[in-house]
């Protein structure tokens, strides 16, 4: 395994009269009660995680959970109170203003919830903006901008102004702008939350399509668990500034670490999330039946087999070796019993 692209360790962001001093007085680990009692507001509380190259980490939480602040601490739009942020092994918090500008000009892109397009610039000029500020010549930056605009499917709209576009189109411009410099690290702050549900779905597909081509390292913020499941490799659930649990969607649903996470995941349609592997019974090695099902198939895709087959069905891995069996009882339990599968 390679080194993480971006990592943070014991990251804190407190708001109040003297956050740094307060943190020091409590040896860097004040309880939430102490924070509240002293009138401080904890936006980010002792957060640590790694994001691997090419991975999509989704940070999920309700409004006020500190997820946006966390993202801004990673990109240093907000100065963290304590902790460290390592980007490609370098300490981001020690970077000088000039180094930071340089990093942002070459290595990072960010997409904003309300698009944050510059209203006085055309689509082309908006997308070319990050290239312009780093001093790329007009011809070169416009060529590059046209490429990215085509990539996000807005070809032909280069001369339009943001207010002449629909919300979905505006966010495509936002995405194009964040990709213009060819960043390694891509921050998305609730990119689709301001769009209506149908457009949101379309944009999520678009995002996944782009990621397949680009393979960026991504930190994606959302308050929508369905969206998190659709796009994430791993999900971090935040509450009151701290991460409640970090894991794959399946782990969160099948093994919630706290009641809060359990509450979040209880209404998730499991048949489209859980794989056969997570509910099957292990079995002794033998030759699998011809009509065995794959272990990584989603439960929804084997529903017909379960209904039509009386006996437990054999489950095989990628190589075709038997790994377990799935019977009707445990299948039904996994779907309808609110208890996680035992």
């Amino acid at each position, binding site marked *: 395994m390679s080194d993480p692209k971006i990592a943070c360790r014991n990251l804190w962001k407190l708001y109040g009269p003297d956050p740094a001093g307060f943190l020091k007085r409590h040896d860097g680990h004040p309880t939430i009660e102490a924070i509240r009692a002293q009138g401080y507001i904890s936006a980010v509380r002792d957060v640590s995680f790694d994001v691997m190259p090419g991975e999509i980490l989704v940070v999920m939480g309700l*409004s006020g959970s*500190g997820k946006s602040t966390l993202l801004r601490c990673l990109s240093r739009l907000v100065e963290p109170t304590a902790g460290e942020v390592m980007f490609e092994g370098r300490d981001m918090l020690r970077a000088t203003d000039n180094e930071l500008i340089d990093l*942002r000009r070459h290595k990072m892109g960010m997409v904003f919830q309300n698009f944050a397009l510059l209203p006085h610039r055309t689509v082309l000029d908006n997308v070319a903006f990050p290239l312009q500020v780093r001093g790329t010549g007009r011809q070169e930056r416009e060529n590059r901008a046209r490429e990215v605009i085509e990539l996000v499917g807005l070809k032909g709209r280069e001369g339009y102004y943001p207010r002449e576009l629909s919300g979905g189109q505006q966010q495509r411009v936002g995405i194009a702008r964040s990709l213009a410099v060819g960043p390694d690290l891509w921050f998305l702050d609730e990119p689709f939350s301001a769009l209506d549900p149908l457009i949101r779905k379309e944009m999520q597909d678009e995002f996944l399509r782009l990621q397949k081509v680009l393979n960026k390292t991504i930190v994606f913020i959302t308050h929508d668990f369905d969206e998190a499941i659709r796009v994430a490799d791993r999900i971090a659930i935040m509450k009151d500034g701290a991460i409640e649990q970090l894991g794959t969607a399946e782990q969160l649903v099948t093994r919630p670490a706290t009641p809060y996470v359990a509450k979040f995941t209880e209404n998730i349609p499991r048949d489209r999330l859980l794989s056969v592997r997570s509910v099957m019974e292990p079995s002794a090695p033998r030759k699998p039946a011809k009509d065995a099902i794959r272990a990584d198939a989603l439960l929804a895709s084997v529903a017909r087999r379960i209904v039509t087959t009386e006996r437990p069905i054999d489950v095989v891995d990628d190589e075709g070796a038997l790994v377990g069996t799935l019977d009707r009882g445990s299948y039904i339990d996994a779907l309808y019993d609110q208890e996680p599968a035992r």
Partner: protein
Amino acid sequence: MSAVAMERPTRADAPGAFAKAAKPALSVLPFLILFLCAPLLPGWMMKVPQAWTIPFIDWTNAFIDHLRDDALFGLFSFRDFTRWIAELITWPLALVEGLLVSGFPAIGLPAMPWVMTAGLCGVLGWSLRDWRLGALAAGCVAYMAIFGKWELSMITLSVVLVAAPIAGGIGFLLGILAVKKPWFEAAIVPVLNVLQSLPHFSYLIPIAVFIGVGHKAGTIATIIFAIPPMARLTILGLKGIAEEIREAGKMAGCTRFQMLWMVEIPAARQALLVGVNQVIMQCLAMVVIASFVGARGLGHDLLFRLQSLKIGQALESGVAIVLMAIVLDQLSRAAAEKQPSHLAENTSWLARFPFVSIAIAVCVVSLVLSAITPYASVWPTEWTLSTAPLWDGLVDWITLYFFDPLQYFRDGMLLYVLIPIRGLFQQIPWTAMVALVAVAGWSLGGWRLALIVSGFVLFIAFAGFWERSLITAYMVTVAVLLCILIGLPIGIWASKTERRAKLAKLWCDTFQTFPSFIYLIPVIMLFKVGDVAAISAIIIYAMIPTIRYTVFGLRNVPQDIVEAGITSGCTQRQLLWNIRMPLAFPEIMLGINQTIMFALFMVIIAAFIGTKDIGQEIFRALTFNDAGKGLVLGLCVAFMGLTADKLITAWSAERKSRLGLV
């Protein structure tokens, strides 16, 4: 999204119903006691004794004299410096004036033909909004030529065209500095507050001292007067940019300089252009009043004709000023509202820049026309029309048929309403007034607000013009009460339908652009001079914000609350008094606050028609070039306005937050 939901502190001490009703009563109690016991009070509590007054005026004058005569920066004195600045201004002034009206005799170049000016204004209007605005602009310019106001109006216009960019530029830079440096903002905002509540005349007197009288002094006064609104709107505009836009700039890797020029200023473009509109309108208002220190142009003409009571001719000049105000306002407003749109690609230059092409065509055609006929370059005097006989006829007609009723009305008002109220006001002890504002300030905003507002009143009391100030207070109070009595019903009526509301907004916008001085013309026509005339002028001018804010407040009550009322079975009347009015009231109070400010501005200008208040003293200070007195009295007026402003905005903000409207 902000990081964390803020928890609102809940109020532990919920006051009972009795305490709630008693609180406002308690705050006027000290005032009432002192006021009613006035005959029993010792003299020093009534009026600050002469011996106690603080010689603010002498101090100011000493400082000004020092600046004028002694302060030397090496080779030159401060006055040399100001005169040198004034000398600089003559250059652009001469250039614009030469272009518009006087030509350049030295190099044998004539001024622009009037056809060209009218045509270019038309194209400008057309390009900024539509052909109707173009027609309005061209028509108004043509009016100036046809009705013999060409020279005067072009001189006035050239002052505005020179003063507005300079004032706008300075205000813009101050605004940027304030946004970037918090200490500078903390220093400049109170100064802007005071400057924006200083009466026009207070600006004129120091100008007269340091620069002298004349056209360029008037121009400088105009520039200085128009700086504060631009600075303020720059601050507002730059602070109003969405945080995300700024973050987008940072994430793109902008340096601070790139951030300012490529992100913040363009994103605040609209607010900045509204500032430009304000600057232009302030310039026009001031250049009219600057005629008191010798600025030439329409204002000078108007002043001259009013002084010789030639009402018809004064009205004619007034109409010209009004037309100019409307055109300047509409053009700059259209510029602020204009949104960029995309251009079709691969079209000809002509199609891509249609208005530039038309403008060039206009220039060529008018030059050719004026080569063929002189009528196209200068409108011939023998063809000039005058509306003065018409206006004179109107005035005569009014005098003939309405002289008696107007006379009765005036005398009745004076004898039975104004003089008794004035008498009451003049008995207010200064201690009572301090007590009133201090208690009101304390209950609305704590000891800090109490300290500020009572400081204002103490300044007025100890400056030694208490009685004069009370007369000003009386006129303003009467006028504001009448404004509310008349303006509130109009506002309620106008808020009933969308169409009426739009109409009301249009009228308010239009009337507000007129320089305040204009409002003196009709009242002189009806009531000659005196308190009734002054108060009428104040009412006409100051009623505008009451109406505007009433309409705005009532129309902007959240729709779902109104619908909740309707579904609860409210009648129209219940809807108005139980739902719309209480929710709109904080907004309406802000309108009344503005009305007080407008009234204070107008009451000072009304000194021109013979009032006996502070305005008259300032007016006299202007005649005697007494800068210290003019400034101190101006501050008295400003502090009156600021006292009302601080108290009302504190009340309104508190009320709004309690109603959950912010």
